[in-house]
């Protein structure tokens, strides 16, 4: 079975390490904040100028001056700090954020990512995504493996305008966890009940399948 959104979020959160500063993109990445492993302390960075983002506020705590990068009302965690957008992206470009998790339309085996624009459709803009992928060393892309029509989103070469070039090393899809090394996808884990054959069939980019591909474990 393909992973649900919640399972994707849970699997991503298993990559969180104690003491990590993490930037989570809009959507599934944000959900990962609900599955932070026990005994692991992380601090969430929101690129509009908040380090130490807390949960959504209770009704009586709502503050229009306190939002996240998705423009949702949030709270501050203990030990939080506030700064300008310039300082925020200095942190990001300067490589001070330990892990970035974001979504994508397409990823290719050269580590390229396309996530912000579909020509001919409405153009909304890249927001902070280009800075995040250029600045972070440790990035996990979460996405569906293929479109509803069965077209692979893991390609030899992205077809859409790029958000970043050669910057992605790890992809978590609803079917598999893959690394990108030396111009190939490498199949590391498969979703429970999903066969290697299914994954091979839905991966258009060059794929290396090691002898052992364990099923994902949800701790």
């Amino acid at each position, binding site marked *: 079975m393909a992973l649900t959104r919640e399972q994707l979020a849970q699997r991503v959160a298993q990559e969180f390490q104690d003491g990590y500063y993490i930037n989570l993109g809009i959507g599934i990445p944000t959900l990962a904040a609900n599955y932070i492993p026990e005994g692991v302390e992380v601090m969430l960075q*929101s*690129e*509009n*100028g*908040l380090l130490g983002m807390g*949960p*959504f*506020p*209770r*009704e009586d705590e*709502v*503050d*229009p*001056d*306190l*939002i*996240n990068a*998705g*423009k*949702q*009302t*949030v709270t*501050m965690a203990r030990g939080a700090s*506030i*700064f*300008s*957008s*310039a300082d*925020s*992206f200095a942190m*990001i*470009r300067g490589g001070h954020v330990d892990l970035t998790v974001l979504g994508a339309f397409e990823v290719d085996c050269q580590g*390229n990512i396309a996530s912000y*624009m579909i020509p001919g459709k*409405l*153009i*909304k*803009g*890249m*927001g*902070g*995504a*280009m*800075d995040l992928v*250029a*600045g972070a060393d440790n990035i996990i892309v979460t996405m569906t493996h293929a479109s509803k029509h069965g077209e692979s989103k893991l390609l030899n070469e992205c077809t859409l*305008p*790029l*958000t*970043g*070039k*050669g910057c992605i090393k790890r992809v978590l899809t609803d079917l598999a966890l893959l690394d990108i090394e030396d111009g190939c996808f490498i199949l590391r884990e498969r979703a429970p009940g999903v066969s290697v054959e299914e994954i091979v069939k839905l991966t258009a980019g060059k794929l290396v399948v090691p002898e052992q591909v364990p099923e994902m474990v949800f701790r």
Partner: protein
Amino acid sequence: MSGFDKVVGSYEEAMAGLEDNMTVIAGGFGLCGIPENLIREIRRKGTRGLTVVSNNCGTDKYGLGILLVDKQIRKMVASYVGENALFEAQMMSGELEVELTPQGTLAEKMRAGGAGIPAFYTATGYGTPVGEGKEVREFNGRHYILEEAIQGDFSIAKAWKADRYGNLVFRKTARNFNPMAVTAGRIAVVEVEEIVEVGELDPDEIHLPGIYVNRLIQGTFEKNIEQRTVRSA
């Protein structure tokens, strides 16, 4: 106004001198920390042909979005322009020129503009449509593109508190682009929730010194919320 006192008496006075075809840099992120009354004054004045530099362009009803109603904006420089039907319509018809700029690059363009740095290299956007036509240089085996600073004829910003000299204190994530926007405008206009007497702010708590501020006004704010998200008690 005398000496270092930056306080002006009205919004009309605050935006005096803004003319057609000027460039305006605006602080704010979404609807958070936007100079909402200064934007309303631009609407009232009816200034046209503006180039507006801001992370977003408000919504249909609020923020910079209200300047689209009478087509006062000719060109928008922003990182994200969703949530706005009028914007979409004017962009599609070609009446509104849009220059999409990565968020961190936009912040740094403003910072550089205010700090006397004409341009800077960044890895952001290399190999993407943003990098097309821009100078590329390699440092330590990595590619970077040259991005130019932005300066405005005016900048409009919102802070929480100020003293009469224009020393500014921001509140929570309403800070966002505001400090850099202030520094990058030839005439920097700031509206705040409270103006206190000089000496009342601890010099150590001032986020942006008054040297960057030309005009200061106290206003009242609606502070609309784009995505009201709450958890149950």
